[in-house]
């Protein structure tokens, strides 16, 4: 295929070619960055929380008034929940992974430290917690029932022992096992008696918590407050039935309460990542529309060129050019325009990414994205040009002999 005649033909139609190239360049820049953001969001959403999410649900229980027998009420509720058919185990806590609100503390190696060693979420737990959430203990032991004490909101009781996540243990003691070590939480010493594989913090997908998203500690307390969260693990296939049963049971025990946010964990997760999901879907939709608009733009403009050049094409055919030759002409023309557009687009894409890194919390996009984006845009051009190019190829040579 000769490139020179294409170039000289293009020179007579600079603006049209420029417009297509510009469209492709901007499309490429947007496409790469959007896909990069989508991929980031999806990988955030795919992280496991550590909880057996298929079988656990949560209940937010709020007592009316401030009864002084909170401890007895809590024990009664939990015993009732655990004895329901289809329930594996249950416990109560101040918060749970992906909830969106909870407690966090600094964890230090010494009682007085200017900058803290690690930051961690704080969950209240009892001997049923590991079994309820389905956490995997990788070292040490579970809490025993006599270790668990009552804690009021304002109290600051000495925690005798705690279980931490592997991530937190490694952050505190990178060189050795954290098991059996004493660390300081709010200046009070506490011994690590167990390490679980994974348990995320209550907050996900914000820049503050992402820095310690797997740092969690479980402390053996019954949290005595007007509002607490019950977590219940059910046997396979029993989730929906137990959710109904549990609410009925709680109201049977005592009506003077508000039972709120009864959510299977799938719902907790969907809510926690709702805006990430929205961003991914919206960007996906915009990308699809973008590709469609660019493709149809190419179809429209090339069709117009074909119509404009019908006579010339007829003459070329009459002079011996094959259908394939005509097809190749338009395809080559499009590749040249697309290549120019893609070259500029690669620069734009990288520039946009760099600018977003400085303006927003954004990481560097890998070159692979940009290159595969460039290939995709060139392929898109080829696909779009096919129909008008086929039309051009089907122009009969006899057209040359007819009067215009």
């Amino acid at each position, binding site marked *: 295929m000769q490139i020179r005649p294409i170039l000289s033909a293009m020179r007579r139609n600079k*603006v*049209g070619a420029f*417009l*297509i190239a*510009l*469209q492709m360049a*901007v*499309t490429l*820049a*947007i496409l790469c*960055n*959007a896909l990069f*953001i989508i991929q980031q969001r999806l990988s955030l959403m795919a992280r496991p929380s550590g909880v057996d999410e298929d079988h656990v649900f949560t209940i937010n229980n*709020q*007592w*009316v*008034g*401030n009864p002084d027998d909170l401890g007895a009420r809590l024990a009664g509720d939990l015993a009732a929940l655990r004895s329901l058919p289809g329930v594996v185990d249950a416990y109560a806590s101040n918060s749970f992974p992906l909830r969106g*609100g909870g407690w966090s503390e600094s964890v230090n190696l010494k009682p007085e430290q*200017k*900058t803290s060693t690690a930051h961690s979420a704080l969950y209240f737990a009892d001997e049923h917690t590991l079994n309820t959430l389905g956490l995997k203990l990788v070292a040490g032991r579970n809490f025993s029932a006599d270790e668990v004490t009552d804690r009021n*909101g*304002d*109290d*600051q009781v000495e925690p005798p022992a705690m279980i931490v996540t592997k991530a937190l243990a490694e952050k505190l003691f990178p060189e050795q096992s954290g098991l059996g070590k004493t660390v300081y939480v*709010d*200046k009070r010493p506490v011994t690590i008696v167990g390490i679980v594989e994974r348990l995320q913090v209550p907050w996900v997908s914000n820049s503050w918590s992402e820095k310690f998203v797997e740092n969690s500690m479980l402390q053996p307390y019954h949290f005595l407050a*007007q509002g607490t969260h019950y977590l219940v693990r059910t046997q396979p296939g029993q989730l929906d039935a137990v959710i109904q049963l549990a609410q009925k049971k709680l109201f049977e025990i005592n009506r*003077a*309460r*508000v039972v*709120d946010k009864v959510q299977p964990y799938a719902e907790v997760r969907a*809510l926690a990542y*709702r*805006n990430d*999901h*929205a*961003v991914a*879907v*919206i*960007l996906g*939709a*915009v990308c699809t*529309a*973008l590709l*469609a*608009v*660019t493709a*149809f*733009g190419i179809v*429209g*403009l090339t069709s*117009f060129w074909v*119509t*404009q050049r019908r006579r010339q094409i007829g003459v070329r055919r009459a002079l011996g050019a094959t259908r394939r030759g005509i097809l190749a002409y338009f395809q080559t023309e499009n590749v040249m325009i697309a290549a120019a557009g893609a070259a500029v687009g690669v620069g734009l894409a990288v520039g946009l990414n760099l600018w*977003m890194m400085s*303006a*927003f*919390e954004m990481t560097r996009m890998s070159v692979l994205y940009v290159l595969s984006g460039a290939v995709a845009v060139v392929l898109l051009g080829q696909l779009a040009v096919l129909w008008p190019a086929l039309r051009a190829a089907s122009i009969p040579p006899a057209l040359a002999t007819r009067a*215009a």
Partner: protein
Amino acid sequence: MFRYYVWLALRSLRRNPALTLLMVLAIGLGIGASMTMLTLFRTMSGDPIPQKSSQLFVPVIDNWGPDAHSKSSEPEQDQLNYVDAMALMRAHQATRQAAMYQVGFALTPADPQLQPFQVPARATYADFFEMFDVPFEYGNAWGAADDEGRSEVVVISRKLNDKLFGGANSVGNTINLDQHDYRIVGVLDHWAPEPRVYDVISGTFDEVEDVFLPFTLAIDRHMTTWGNNNCYDSRLPGWDGHLQSECIWIQFWAELPDAAQAQRYRSFLDNYAAEQQRSGRFHWAPLTRLHNSREWMVVEKVVPDESRILVLVSFGFLFVCQVNAVGLMLAKFMGRAAETGVRRALGANRRAVFLQCLVESGVIGLAGGLLGLALTALGLLGVRALLSEDLARMAHLDAGNVVIALLLAVVATVLAGLYPTWRAMQVQPAWQLKAN
């Protein structure tokens, strides 16, 4: 003449329906996407009380010292602790001032058949309602005496009043919150500031609370915050330990009508911090800030980055759509160069050709804009289904947004049509006639 051009434009558009459809579709999609994102962004970055936003201020006092902030020298606190909030309330250095925090109750309805339910509430001072121009349907705010006397009075939202009293005037009635009776002194009219300007620390885009009660009473009753509580250092046990601690959990607003008063308040804050340093509570030089509500929305990053990115991407998309339209319009106008040549030869001057083409691109823009509006409505519907409840409530199309969308479509399309129009103008009548 204008009507003739419109008629010509419609005829020309009908002659080439595929190309016309393509242009209108491209512009419509571009407008739809960008307006959907812009609508969201505009609501998020909105100023719900424009008449007051330059007079309402948030004071910031560094009560943790330099060790607590990461590199920057800006104080990182966005709330006050109880000690400082009370000192500012007592000092009474602003025209109006209100400390506040989020609480919540289990409300027991009078009808014993009904289950108790949860109501979000806010503990604050009487000045709050005047400061934020809160509209009342019945009754009014409690008075300074109620703040002083820790009265068991509440102002309730219209929504709660509808639910409990069927929308009737309930002033004087009582409601039972966590087994205490509170007397209703006022019922709010519809009030939905977006963002919820007075508390953007937690629940920035939440609805306004259902119950407002005196701060002093909430403290008396040991009501812990349902919002954010941030502690830097350890504290003593018990409620008093909480109150005396350096934990920050109170939002504070001061109304300062002019710049001079704001300046005076700044020096007052510095003096206060210096006093705390002298008394030995702060071991560092005074570090205070005073932001008006507009600045505060920026400091608190009320508009998330995502929203900006989506606006950016959607406008990039609009740009591509417009470039597309330029190409297609160019094709269209040049495609009828012969016709233009005939018109020129018959006496139409360049201006006439220019106007005709401009009217045609305007018509396309308007059609694209209307399609874009429909798509925006559709897009917002989709976004509502995707976003969390609080953000979704805000995604609605108001008159301002409709005007922006149509203007954007027509202006963008006419701009896009300028080059093709100019090219059409350049058509040489003689050359075109000869060629045929």
